[in-house]
């Protein structure tokens, strides 16, 4: 981490809106990406993550700030002078060229010898498990195969950084999961630095070494997947990453008063929770951290019980809010709808978050 590989310094990008206003797509964003890292830019659509990726690629020019790759400033260079390549969301395969020609295109631009180009095309197709597809046209391939060709085309260039713009969003869930594992493996084997844009938090956590969570042009939290999930910096991150019960409470003597007259003792909260002297706080509890207990701290009425296969989701009305608990579908007595239950936060996983 100490070695600086790709540095993003104070990038600002402002777009005019059709109404005459402006949107700060990137609002003073800075971050360092290490060599060989699988780095995730995560956020909802319009949060600026794609703009940052395109700025690294050279398809957008930021209004101010610097992008430095291996000590070289690249933010004012055209895309063809940057040693980075992109896998596009739409794949952007050239429809009039065969798979082989698509992959060779980028290599021909580098004036690489013909024999070497042919060798690298075969190599790239091997990497994405599409050997023998050289002479197919993109239109003759399935979505998943087109995706692999797009990946092979970018990888064949042996880029210093591979940029991936939501490459899996068009695939169905099973294919997507398979590709996630494969991408991770490919990244480890090639050692190429990946910068991966996604709005899918599950995808982000399953692949990333580190995740930068974006909101409205800013990085809200930059951390490992475990920390982003377990120690969200605020309610936005807690809510965006995974599923969370966000419960408003009031600081009272001995703990936090939750809706419905329930009291959550401070001792139940995570060690590093910030507890103010008084006033309102937001408590975040993951559904899987709640268990049914006879002496539970949070009591309420069961409103819905939903069986999802690997778990049973119990919606409990607590005071004027609803709390969701995710229980194991085996070995648990499932409460009936309308019954009174009590829930306990486990493992001291509940925490207060800034709202």
């Amino acid at each position, binding site marked *: 981490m100490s070695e600086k590989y790709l540095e993003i310094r104070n990038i600002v990008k402002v777009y005019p809106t059709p109404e005459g206003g402006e949107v700060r797509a990137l609002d003073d964003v800075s971050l360092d990406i290490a060599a060989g890292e699988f780095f995730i830019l995560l956020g909802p659509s319009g949060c600026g993550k794609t703009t940052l990726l395109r700025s690294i690629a050279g*398809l957008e020019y930021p209004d101010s700030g610097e992008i430095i790759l291996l000590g070289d400033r690249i933010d004012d260079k055209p895309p063809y002078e940057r040693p980075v390549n992109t896998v596009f969301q739409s794949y952007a395969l050239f429809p009039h060229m065969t798979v082989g020609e698509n992959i060779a295109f980028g290599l021909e631009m580098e004036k690489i010898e013909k024999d070497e180009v042919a060798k690298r095309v075969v190599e790239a197709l091997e990497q994405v498990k599409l050997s023998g597809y050289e002479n197919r046209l993109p239109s003759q391939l399935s979505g998943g195969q087109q995706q692999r060709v797009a990946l092979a085309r970018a990888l064949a260039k042996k880029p210093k950084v591979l940029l991936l713009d939501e490459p899996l969003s068009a695939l169905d869930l099973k294919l997507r999961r398979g590709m996630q594992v494969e991408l991770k493996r490919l990244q480890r084997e090639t050692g190429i630095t990946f910068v991966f844009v996604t709005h899918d938090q599950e995808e982000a956590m399953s692949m990333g070494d580190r995740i930068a969570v974006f909101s409205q042009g800013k990085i809200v939290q930059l951390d490992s997947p475990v920390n982003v999930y377990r120690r969200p910096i605020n309610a936005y991150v807690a809510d965006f990453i995974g599923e969370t019960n966000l419960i408003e409470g009031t600081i009272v003597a001995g703990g936090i008063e939750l809706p419905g007259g329930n009291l959550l003792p401070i001792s139940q909260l995570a060690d590093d929770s910030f507890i103010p002297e008084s006033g309102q706080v937001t408590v975040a509890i993951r559904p899987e951290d709640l268990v049914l207990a006879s002496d539970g701290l949070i009591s309420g009425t069961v409103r819905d019980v939903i069986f999802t296969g690997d778990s049973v989701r119990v919606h409990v009305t607590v005071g004027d809010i609803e709390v969701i608990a995710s229980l194991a579908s085996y070995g648990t007595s499932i409460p009936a709808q309308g019954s009174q239950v009590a829930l306990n936060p486990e493992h001291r996983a509940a925490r207060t978050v800034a709202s």
Partner: protein
Amino acid sequence: MTAATAAPKSGSKSKSKRARPGQASPKLAYLPIIFLAFAIGIPLLIIVVYSFLEKPSQGTGVKWVFTTENYQALFIQQKLDGTTALDTRYLKVLWTSFSYSLITTIVTLVLSIPVAMWIATRDARKRTLLVALVTLPFWISILIRTYGMRQIIADEGPIGKFLGLFNIEWSILYSPPATILGLIYVFLPFMILPIYASAERFDFRLAEAAYDLGAKKLTVVRRIVLPAIRPGVISGIALVFIPALGSFLQSDMLGGGKTNMVANVIANNFGQARNWPFGSALAVLLIMLTLLFVLVIQGISQRRGDKVELV
């Protein structure tokens, strides 16, 4: 299954023969097809028949005697002493038409690609406006437009007067360049529109991908953009070259009749020269050459796998 087969058949038509919703009935096409068949087929038949008939000794029309003389006369000259020699006059006229059409096609093509690409990259509202502007000339009769062109390029016209201020002599009217200029002017929209139609469908993310893979602007245009708009380019070439080959108004009004294109010679034979059979033979030759060109274009586009249908 049993229920379906046992069900009584309603009406005489089986289900599979019934037109699916959204499918046009072929009956709707009958009337225009019949109309076109008559309006194109009958004149064509008359021309072909006339081309094999003799010219009457007096007046216009045809004498109903079969002959192939009209076709021989296209290439062979009967001398007064009875000997024959190759007659290159009509071949030269054909070459003139061909070269004018070729120049017109090339110039309109070179002008149209950047224009079409530029329009295609505007936002939707501007695109509609710009396409309307390209079609604006169609609102005015070609005769009036050509007449207007004559006023503009006349020696004493605005261009001539302006250049006169710098003592530059301007005399272009009634010359081959004036004819070609008139052709370019009239046919430019026919090149822009089909290329625009292709360019509009072009996915500009492909250009981005090419840049990302290390291509510079010219390479992107040559290897990504041009192949994508090729169907439009081929349509444009056909829409310009074929009618240009048969056009006569421009050489008549702007070329001053000095530079005859093949259509002028055909028109002349039906008019002043009063030789309908020979005019017909020349017309048949022009149709054959045009057809040959169409087949060549289609051959090229089919080999490339483009979706261009001309015949």
